[in-house]
């Protein structure tokens, strides 16, 4: 019978990523509910900085998987190495943060190990011995509960902030080196250069007021009504990704997981649905007003003021009222 929870820990510049600390926190909570040990695995050419960082956490063991072929992440390298570790430990659960890296290989790893992955979960619940996984569906409009059955290992990736890293339990953990059989010929992709995208002209992180526009604006010509409102409020224009993809505004105005993270005094969104990738970039705003015609729009879940209505009717009048109030 498989036993234990293995967390695969991601790192950048010799530091454990926050999303992995959240995953460890989630694993600790699942462990408390199921009475299982928690292990962490670090993959790198040199694991020492990360294993040292993790050794003061409440973990039953840390596996250091060091190999020159793991200096750069590749889906083949990680899959071959982790499949060997998972065969040895035979965990009931494998937990990772739902990062870009996890998106790239964890489904493949699960399949290679004869298991299966539920991706982008926001909660794990093991009450009564049965595991229920919750994830957002329909771009956040609804939640879905999934049960898991079978003897195989259950792989789970957790959405950013699904668990609170501040609740991580401390302890002391031993480190075990795990040697893997991994050769250059196992890796089919060649990693070339890494580079930063275009430099930013606007720094939305410094804005006090952001009027953010989404695809609900329908077409580029309608940007004007948002710009007028932004001008009246003395704020800057921000945008969801599709608006930037379509080139209505520059990519440097994109808010979200692949754009900027902002926390203005006022975030006023127009025709943005509130997909998680957008929300992670703006949920720290002090005050959020959202205008959307769909009463189920997930942006309303995090808004202070939810205005259910047609932005084309409301915004021009709002602009006039703001001017009058100033």
């Amino acid at each position, binding site marked *: 019978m498989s036993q234990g929870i293995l967390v695969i820990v991601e790192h950048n510049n010799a530091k454990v990523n926050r999303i992995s600390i959240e995953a460890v926190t989630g694993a600790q909570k699942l462990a408390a509910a199921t009475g299982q040990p928690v292990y962490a695995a670090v993959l790198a050419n040199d694991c020492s900085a990360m294993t040292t960082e993790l050794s003061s956490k409440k973990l039953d063991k840390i596996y250091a998987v060091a190999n020159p072929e793991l200096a750069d992440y590749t889906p083949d390298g990680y899959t071959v190495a982790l499949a060997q570790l998972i065969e040895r430990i035979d965990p009931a659960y494998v937990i990772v943060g739902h990062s870009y890296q996890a*998106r790239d290989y964890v489904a493949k790893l699960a399949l290679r190990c004869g298991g299966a992955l539920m991706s982008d979960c926001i909660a794990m619940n093991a009450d009564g011995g049965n595991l229920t996984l919750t994830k957002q569906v329909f771009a956040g409009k609804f939640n879905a509960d999934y049960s898991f*059955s079978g003897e195989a290992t259950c792989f789970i990736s957790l959405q950013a902030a699904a668990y609170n890293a501040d609740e991580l339990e401390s302890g002391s953990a031993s480190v075990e080196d795990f040697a893997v059989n991994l050769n250059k010929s196992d890796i089919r992709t060649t990693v*070339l250069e890494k580079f*930063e995208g275009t430099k930013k002209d606007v720094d939305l992180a410094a804005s006090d007021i952001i009027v953010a526009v989404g695809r609900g604006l329908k077409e580029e010509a309608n940007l004007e009504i948002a710009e007028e409102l932004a001008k009246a409020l003395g704020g800057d224009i921000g945008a969801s990704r599709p608006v930037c993809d379509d080139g209505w505004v520059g990519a440097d105005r994109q808010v979200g997981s692949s754009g900027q993270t902002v926390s203005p005094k006022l975030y006023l969104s127009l025709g943005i649905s509130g997909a998680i990738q957008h929300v992670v970039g703006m949920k720290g705003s002090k005050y959020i007003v959202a205008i959307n015609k769909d009463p189920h729009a997930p942006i309303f879940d995090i808004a202070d003021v939810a205005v259910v209505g047609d932005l084309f009717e409301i915004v021009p009048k709002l602009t006039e009222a703001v001017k009058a109030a100033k």
Partner: protein
Amino acid sequence: MKIAILLKQVPVKDATLELNGDGTWIDEDDVQFEINDSDHYGLAEALNIAKDNDGEVTVVTMGPDRVKESIKQALAKGAHQAIHINDEDVKSSDPLTRAKIIAEAVKGENFDLILSGLQSDDYGYGQTGVLVAEMLGMPHATLVVETEINGDKIKVKRELEGGWFQNIELPLPAVLSIQSGLTDIPYATIKGIMMAKKKPVADVEADDLGVELEGGAFKLEKIYTPVKSKETAVLKGDADSVVPQIIDKLKNAAKVL
């Protein structure tokens, strides 16, 4: 060069969705469907690659009869042919089962390149491309925003976190999951729409592929409206009644006026 684009049909982005009676799916009655967002970019990239490399694009779509409409659209935009995997009652919501069906359906076609969108706007598993690659023994890359064929290799630009990018190279045949962004989405022309009618669509029954359709490791128990964690003032009504209330909040709560 033989290129496949795995294309999914999902509810239109603007639809106000309601749940069905037993909370296992949406109520499809008044809902329109369209091609999934990132799949548009996948199709665009497939067409670009085909144009530059004397290629042929096959649209592969699984779903009930309604997906024929999306197939027609993709053909009108320039895809050459299609495979419709007919799954009338969308039997399994399990990501692995769905990928197995697709892998079985495309296995014999020996594609040089299989493209998919990064994730769908309904279940949003984001696993299909990666799983199909593993099932067919092909290398893959996800979050791809640019591609360049170099002989028997393909160089791709991948989006990373925090505004970074990475170039990697893969041997062909390969599977790529395409992220939204850098290419322009093609429009269907009148000529394209006319030509689409003559393009071949192969019908495959999901039931005939030898994959166990029901079950799978994960079972969808229920779909429901999430419970809100934050206190929100909900303003409804016509513009003249909501605007003064918004102004009041901007003044007294947000304190920006």
